[in-house]
């Protein structure tokens, strides 16, 4: 994928399985975790370390009034800072 094609957007998906497959294609297991985390932060996700090699990210889509999508991502890396596992979940938020 070219750089333009590679940009992952949660807004293109409506279920976590499809989003996880696309995310894994862009940031496959074994690749460096840093670009994946950077991409999530760049798109507006809030990421936090929840362990020595584990990160939790929360991405709120822009349109949340009166209801919208909230994505949750867990990324685990190995000692070499390569992605080992990615988990993605999707919740519908509403007032």
């Amino acid at each position, binding site marked *: 994928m070219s750089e333009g094609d590679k940009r992952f957007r949660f807004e293109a998906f409506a*279920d976590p399985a499809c989003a996880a497959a696309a995310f894994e294609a862009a940031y496959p297991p074994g690749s460096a975790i840093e670009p994946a985390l950077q991409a999530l932060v760049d798109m507006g996700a809030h990421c936090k370390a*929840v362990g020595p090699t584990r990160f939790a990210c929360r991405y709120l889509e822009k349109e949340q009034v009166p*209801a919208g999508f*909230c994505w949750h991502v*867990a*990324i685990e890396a190995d000692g070499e800072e390569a992605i080992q596992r990615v988990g993605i979940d999707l*919740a519908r*938020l*509403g*007032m």
Partner: protein
Amino acid sequence: MDAARVDLMASAAGKVGGVTWHHLFLVAEDASGRQQYLRAGPQCLPLERLAGRQTQYGDAAEDYEPSPAGAHGVITIATGAYEPGGTDFDPVAANVTLASGNAAARLWDSVQRAAKALGDEQIPYDPVGRGANWAIMEALRRCGVQAALPPKRWAPGAGELAPEVALPGVSTRRLGQGVVR
């Protein structure tokens, strides 16, 4: 789960008029530190929110079936492990502890039952009335708990709904906990 603590959580969810609104949910923790959430949400989102999106089966809009309950369906209750990457996990969510020790175990059992009963009522989801925040607070109210929100957090719908006031020739629309005429 034998809860040792139950917290009411408020997670930032968006802005209305420049003010951050919060999504409320409950988190219970047992003595080993294992955590579970209890939350409410809309059953679905309107078709226009699915346009151009993909699911694992293809175009999300193609599989869309409108709910007879309205654009957001009914109030849906869910519970599960509260963990990184899972539903509602937010390490910076504000919290207030509602109960701890034996009282927490009793509250967790009763609020789960109350929430399930509420879900079974198939209440149409009304984002400006009976919505997710209302449902969580209502489940607590049905257990005799009048919970205070975490300080300085706005959670539209969290208050008890006032009885409908019918004024001839005046249309009203609830917005959060106020009434706009």
